């Protein structure tokens, strides 16, 4: 262990056992351990640990970024040492620090810090705040491990740990059956998708005789011709796992249900960690993706379908939080397309840049919807309608987030999205099939994204809606749309006229408790730190696009197709106008209200994919399990019947053993015959 540390001021290279890359992973993990070990009941102590740890993690990431920018970062720091598992496989378990991943690490650390700070306010009175903060720390560590991993086994470690943390976070409020079910579903769906992951990684690693990612890439690139089928199969396995983690078709349905978790958890899952992990992993293996046309086409189709379908669903959602969730699915699809349409032999900058921008604005939006839900008591359209018209503090932030999501220039969403569209168009013109598919899908998504962001904005700023919300009893974060169904929900909520006044005046008004008695209460708002964090995210959402000009990202921004940009802007404007027109005259300013009710109802249930999961997987498996249990019962009964059988045989024996001397003599005679026969046969 080197006792004296050296600091090379030029490259910021540190000759320490613990590199910044280690700290990036270890600090958040330490947060969770320290919280569990050090604090007993104190939420404040937990918060202090979480905040300091998050901040240090961010600093470590920033240091790493600085090192990387100056070229002084250790490219492959070792971790716990090489695992000795025989000559057939080297398991070095090293990290891998490269330009893109450092950026992602910074984004993850930033989002995580903001989430930690925000959660302190959001979950102020939650008795399980400690567990929440610890889990967020572990979650961040796991994501950072995936991001910085240079070894497929380490990826698997982080990958599965994230799944577990998402399970804990989604099931945080486990008093509610819906939360329990949603967490169960989230973990199982992703775990099912992970089963091929291990196989795929095994194929890749065993082929390369090493689990190190650079070696895997090198091996398969050199011998791709020989291993075409194996490589395709392995990549398909990996894509399957990515689809699971990133909530792409056909595994998409767990993500909206994951809204059962507290909103900060959703922000973490959606913005920076879990769903983005798929993009990260594929970005690490993108060089192999180029080698397998089949895998690429499959990825394109999966991403395109998810992207478009999720955008449609987002437009129809009755719950704004679920709207954001579906928009995440759509945006992740966009990132994956960015990887699929990548120029040949290029690093994965397109996908990663969109990942970064998405991390900024989606974290912002989720935290804001959490804030709003505290303010208005829920996230369904009826509650949120007009929320911004009263609570102006969040108005600008929401606006920035939505604009970035929609991809309006010059915000960050525009930059990263447009680069992908541009590339798809370019390669589509070159005749690449998957790029063509991707381009068509992208055009649809540009329009649809504009549509649902406009819709959300219009709902939030609706002027009449807020006044008729008179019932302030506790409302859960979201209704279980799968269970209740939108029809019942609409029927159950008080009827209002066009101006939002209740229709049935004769009923006694429920007591209004908020501001009549004690004068105006101060509006609940996050602490200064959390607000600063939100503002930071908003600023980054605006100016983050400038990152493409830095040397950290190598994207071709100089040859932007201005015609294409123009066309897409026109398209977006037209769609926004259409949505605005649709929203006129609806009760809550909801453009989707014009759509037929069955469609909305079905869309709110994610087109009943859940029933498909249940019918296609859960029921057969449980039926199989029952069958096996029955078989097992039979086996057990069979085993347990043996004593009875032996006892019966013994009974027969006692009948044969008559205790008469003469029967003994008969037995002797028979024995002589028997032995004689054997003697004759075997001699």
């Amino acid at each position, binding site marked *: 262990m080197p006792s004296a540390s050296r600091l090379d001021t030029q490259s910021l290279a540190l000759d320490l056992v613990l590199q910044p890359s280690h700290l990036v992973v270890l600090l958040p993990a330490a947060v969770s351990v320290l919280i*569990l070990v050090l604090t007993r009941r104190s939420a404040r102590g937990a918060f202090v640990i979480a905040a300091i740890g998050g901040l240090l993690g961010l600093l470590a990431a920033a240091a790493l970024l600085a090192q990387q920018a100056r070229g002084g970062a250790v490219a492959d720091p070792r971790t*716990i*040492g*090489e*695992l*000795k*598992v*025989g*000559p*057939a*496989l080297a398991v070095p378990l090293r990290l891998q620090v490269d330009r893109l991943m450092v950026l992602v690490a910074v984004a993850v650390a930033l989002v995580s810090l903001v989430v930690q700070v925000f959660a302190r306010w959001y979950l102020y009175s939650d*008795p*399980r705040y400690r567990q929440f903060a610890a889990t967020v720390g572990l979650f961040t560590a796991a994501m950072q491990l995936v991001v910085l991993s240079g070894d497929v*086994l380490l990826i*698997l*470690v*982080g990958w*599965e*740990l994230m799944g*577990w943390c998402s*399970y804990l976070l989604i*099931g945080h409020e*486990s*008093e*509610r*059956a819906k939360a*329990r079910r949603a967490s*169960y579903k989230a*973990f*199982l769906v992703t*775990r*099912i998708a*992970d*089963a*091929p992951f*291990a*196989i795929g990684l*095994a*194929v890749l*690693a*065993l082929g390369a005789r090493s689990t190190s990612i650079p070696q895997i890439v090198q091996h398969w690139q050199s011998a791709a011709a020989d291993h075409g089928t194996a490589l395709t199969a392995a990549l398909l396995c990996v894509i399957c796992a990515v689809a699971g983690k990133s909530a792409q078709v056909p595994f998409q349905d767990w993500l909206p249900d994951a809204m059962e978790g507290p909103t900060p958890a959703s922000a973490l899952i959606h913005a920076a960690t879990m769903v983005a992990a798929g993009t990260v992993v594929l970005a690490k293996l993108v060089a192999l993706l180029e080698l397998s046309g089949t895998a690429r086409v499959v990825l394109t189709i999966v991403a395109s379908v998810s992207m478009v379908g999720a955008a449609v669903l987002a437009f129809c959602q009755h719950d704004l939080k679920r709207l954001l969730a579906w928009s995440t699915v759509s945006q992740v699809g966009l990132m994956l397309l960015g990887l699929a349409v990548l120029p040949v032999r290029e690093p994965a900058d397109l996908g990663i840049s969109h990942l970064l921008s998405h991390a900024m604005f989606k974290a912002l939006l989720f935290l804001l919807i959490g804030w709003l839900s505290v303010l208005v008591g829920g996230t369904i359209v009826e509650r949120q309608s007009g929320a911004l018209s009263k609570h102006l503090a969040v108005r600008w932030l929401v606006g920035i987030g939505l604009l970035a999501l929609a991809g309006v220039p010059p915000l960050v969403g525009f930059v990263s999205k447009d680069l992908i569209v541009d590339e798809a168009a370019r390669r589509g013109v070159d005749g690449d099939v998957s790029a063509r598919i991707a381009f068509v899908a992208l055009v649809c998504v540009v329009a649809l994204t504009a549509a649902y962001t406009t819709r959300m904005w219009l709902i939030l700023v609706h002027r009449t809606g807020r006044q008729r919300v008179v019932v302030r009893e506790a409302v859960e974060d979201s209704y279980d749309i799968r269970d209740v169904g939108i029809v019942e929900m609409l029927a159950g909520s008080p009827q209002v006229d066009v101006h939002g006044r209740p229709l049935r005046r004769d009923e006694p008004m429920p007591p209004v408790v908020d501001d009549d008695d004690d004068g105006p209460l101060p509006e609940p708002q996050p602490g200064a730190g959390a607000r600063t964090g939100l503002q930071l995210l908003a600023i980054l959402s605006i100016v983050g696009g400038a990152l493409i000009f830095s040397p950290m990202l190598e994207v071709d921004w100089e040859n932007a197709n201005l015609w294409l940009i123009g066309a897409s802007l026109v398209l977006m404007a037209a769609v926004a106008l259409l949505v605005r027109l649709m929203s006129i005259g609806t009760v809550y300013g909801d453009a989707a209200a014009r759509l037929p009710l069955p469609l909305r109802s079905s869309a709110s249930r994610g087109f009943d994919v859940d029933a498909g999961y249940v019918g296609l997987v859960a029921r057969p*498996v*449980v039926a*199989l*399990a*029952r069958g*096996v*249990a029955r078989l*097992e019962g039979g*086996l*057990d009964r069979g*085993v*347990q019947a043996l*004593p009875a059988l032996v006892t019966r045989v013994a009974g027969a024996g006692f009948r044969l053993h008559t205790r008469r001397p003469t029967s003994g003599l008969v037995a002797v005679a028979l024995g002589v015959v028997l032995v004689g026969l054997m003697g004759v046969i075997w001699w």
Partner: protein
Amino acid sequence: MVAALLAAPLAPIVAGLALVAGDRVPRAVSRHTAYAVSLAATLISLLAAALIAYDRPSLNRPWVPEVGMRLHLAVDGISVPLLLMTAAVGVLVVIHARHEQPGGGTPGTFFGCLLLVIGGGIATFLVQDAISFFLAFEVVLVPMWVLINRFGDPKDASERARAAATFVLYTVLGSTLMLVGILTMVFASGTADLATLARHPLPAGQQTVVAAILLIGLAIKVPIWPLHSWLPRAHTIAPTAGSMLLAAVLLKMGTYGIVRLVIAPLPAGVERLAPYVATCAVIGIVWGGLVCLVERSLKRLIAWSSVAHMGFVVLGLMSGTAIGLQAALFANIAHGVVSALLFAVVGGLKHRWGGDDLSVARRALRDVSPRLSLALVIGLAASLGLPGLAGFWGEVLAIFGAWNPGGDRSTGWFRLLAAVAAVGAVLAAAYALRVLRIVWMGDADGGRPLPPSPESDARGGELVVVTVLGAATVVLGVLPIILLNTTSGAVDHLMAVVGR
């Protein structure tokens, strides 16, 4: 150092015999005496095991020349982890037994039987002689029978008798078959020394038969599907301490026996039989996982998960690769630690609830007893193969190992098996979460979490036990290298002997 070799198995065995024999003369041993003696014996044993692991001494004397038995005690990389785990679990079991001593007999007998099982386990991992191995294998049977038959679930005497009898009879059948195989090898090579046996393999033609007999015999102990039906029954009924020993010590003897007696001396036979055994193992993985999805008794469910986990171990063993073998040895230890933890927790729960039926609605454990619930979460997470915990490395490496099997094994078939095993890991997730959803999160709906009630949480001995085991689970998961590097030398040597 030689004294340590003798002290490790003999301290618990002698103390155990003394406790059992002295229980009636002139009157029953008091609980405190029994506990103190047991704790001292197991601590001595653990200390001796640590010394052995550090110094690796060896003792080789003739004992019963009539049957070729020698008093040959030594360790290598394969047995050191098992030895240490057995000794450590022994201490924990004794501590736990003080916390939760079941009725049905005197403390002297209870602790004595526990000590005998521990001593037998330690002896099994120390002896280097096939016939003494068989002897050590059998030492645990009668005390375990007493533990189940007298100290088991007090509710159902007939079920206790049945479970105990099923356990003993199954195991005796298995070990006698194993003895037949051992004797065949001993007669063929003229020595019972394990290392020498491995160097002088039988002719290939006979290896298959001998390996089949040995594998059937050991499969009962492991257990491998379909010879497992004693396990759930025994676990369900056994007292918590007994369950911990059963899972952490007894099952390991089977896999250790496979490594020592089958894989090393009979490579050709194993290669021939590996597809079948591995298939059974994988069926066991899926079978156990599926049964866990619908099982109502919590303890039995954990027992079933043992069947599934041992399936991974056997799959790794049968793959014939260094990866698979390393995976199996790792998973072996991991399962020992994790299942001991789970049985400690679940036994405690059964004790508190007065039953272990999952269909009874209860309050969320995370609210009622946070420490216990954390232990449960760690245990179940490790059981589903969560990285960062002990269960992960063994399972994932077993799949890696099975993907490219060694020797002339059918690659396609083993790949299929590996894929099915991966699906089995999903089932593990499903049942682990099922338990968490029912027990940890509670299935009573609504309301805010209540403040924990301290008296229902783990305290004292139980807390020590679950803490140590939980910490071991995490350490093994975070630093698998500790274990893998210990075993790698012996595994490389073994693979060199086996020929690949």
